[in-house]
């Protein structure tokens, strides 16, 4: 069992070296002729207007928040699903109540407009 995780660790190290090898190969093979206009920030061929690190919409924060809620729900669902066949019928109803509570939360967010893009 431990050797499986040792393999994952070694695979992580090897996987990290693959892109680094690629970049090293490109550093050897590719030409390097930097120029002021070539290295400037791209904005469809125009001069850039204002700083690039713009203020962004709060909508992204709301999506991330709802994602965290449902991800924690998933974290609770996985052990329940794996142990399901040895649980009594009551466990099913408890989980259905849990899912309904979260479903009501989703409906609330929907009606309040938290899921709209704008």
């Amino acid at each position, binding site marked *: *069992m431990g*050797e*499986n*995780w*040792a*393999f*994952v660790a*070694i*695979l992580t190290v*090897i*996987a990290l070296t*693959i*892109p*680094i090898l690629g*970049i090293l190969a*490109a*550093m050897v*093979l*590719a030409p*390097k*002729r*930097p120029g*002021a206009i*070539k*290295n*400037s*920030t*791209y904005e*469809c061929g125009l001069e*850039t207007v204002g700083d*690039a*690190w*713009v203020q*962004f919409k709060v*909508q*992204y924060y709301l*999506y*991330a928040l*709802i*994602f965290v809620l*449902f*991800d924690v729900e*998933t974290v609770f*669902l*996985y052990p329940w*699903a*794996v142990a*399901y*066949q040895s649980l009594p*019928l009551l466990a*099913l109803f408890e*989980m*259905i109540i849990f*899912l309904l509570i979260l*479903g009501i939360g*989703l409906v609330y967010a*929907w009606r309040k407009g938290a*899921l709209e*893009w*704008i």
Partner: protein
Amino acid sequence: MLHALPLAESLAETTTSLSGWLTGLFSGTAPEPGASSSAAGIIVASILKATVIVLIVQIGMLYATWGERKIIGRMQDRLGPNRVGLFGLAQPFADMIKMLTKEDITPTAAHKWVYNLGAILVVPPAIIGFAVVALDRNLIAADLSIGALFFFAIGSTAVMPIFMAGWGSRNKYALLGAMRAVAQVVSYEIPQVLSIVGVLLLAGTLSMNGLIHSQGPIGDAFPGVWFILLQPIGFVIFLLATTAEIERTPFDIPEAESEIIAGYHTEYAGIKFGLFYLALYFVTISASAVGAILFLGGWQPPFAFLAGIPGWIWMTAKTLALVFVFMWLRGTLPRLRVDQLMAFAWKVLVPISLVNLMVTGLLAKLVAGRAPLMVFGAFTVANVAMVALLIWLVAGWRRFNAARQITFERPAVQAVGAALRRGAA
């Protein structure tokens, strides 16, 4: 001490003997699958397995790009690449050489560390996901007891490098593209992981080999049929959510050329752009492999009398079939607008997967321990009922939308129609 390679009795035995020989080679003990006592033996065997995985996946990815261009070309009534080598088979190598020899233009305003790390870190999650993919009964690199959860968890870590790439580029459009990409990926994570909870319920295990064993004639666990027959809704949701996770058409708004130039990888040139492309195809192949394991029975043959054909041929065929489905979707469907995309995830896929999960849980308790045919029958009835309910709801929604449009558009359309008829008559 080397052991002689045992003679294989049938073609299906080759994989068992090969893996046993490889392990025995490095641990010096009798060939047993997975047995390796010394630390050095484990490390060397791991490096060998990792190299084999990377090589196979790299070749697979190169020919997946070839296959994509040919298949989509044929769907669009054209030939696809056919100049470089016979049938264009050397095209991926030409592309690789092109990417390596292009100048690496780094914008002066970019934040060097974050910009470079973003490109480097997007590839490892794609490769590590292959650790739990089972090619055959004994050809799984690491049969973790939490295999399925591991795969989706590693996939989630691919979100950070996307945002690092967009933010580090110091480009308004790259940043907006990165934020859209992150919003899309996290939104479609939820239907993706919820759709497979039904499968986990029926199998009772998270390990990949365990999931495969509970699906086939060569197994002894609960249902004994492929999960696609019991969970077709889960399969469709998994396919759609995975298409969105890997940002392919019709969900490729974050990187669509005509929409936002190239989204979060606008400012990358040469090999760094190639790394994003690489990661995309790696995840396509690994997600297809995991879909084949979860829903199509992995290395199990569909019928017991076909067990003579080795498992890895079945697994490869099923993975390639799912890769073809992804390419088919790309060649057929138009792109979704970003607000349609997000609405589809949260308002359609999440409710459907929750309902599917509850119905599956109920049925699994009711038909526990019955014959596979009865299980299949009960699930078919429930699935047909759910699909009928879904179609009824969609029809009602379309009628509701049409009713809202009549008050605004109908008089104008009727006036135009009447004018045309007067003009033509």
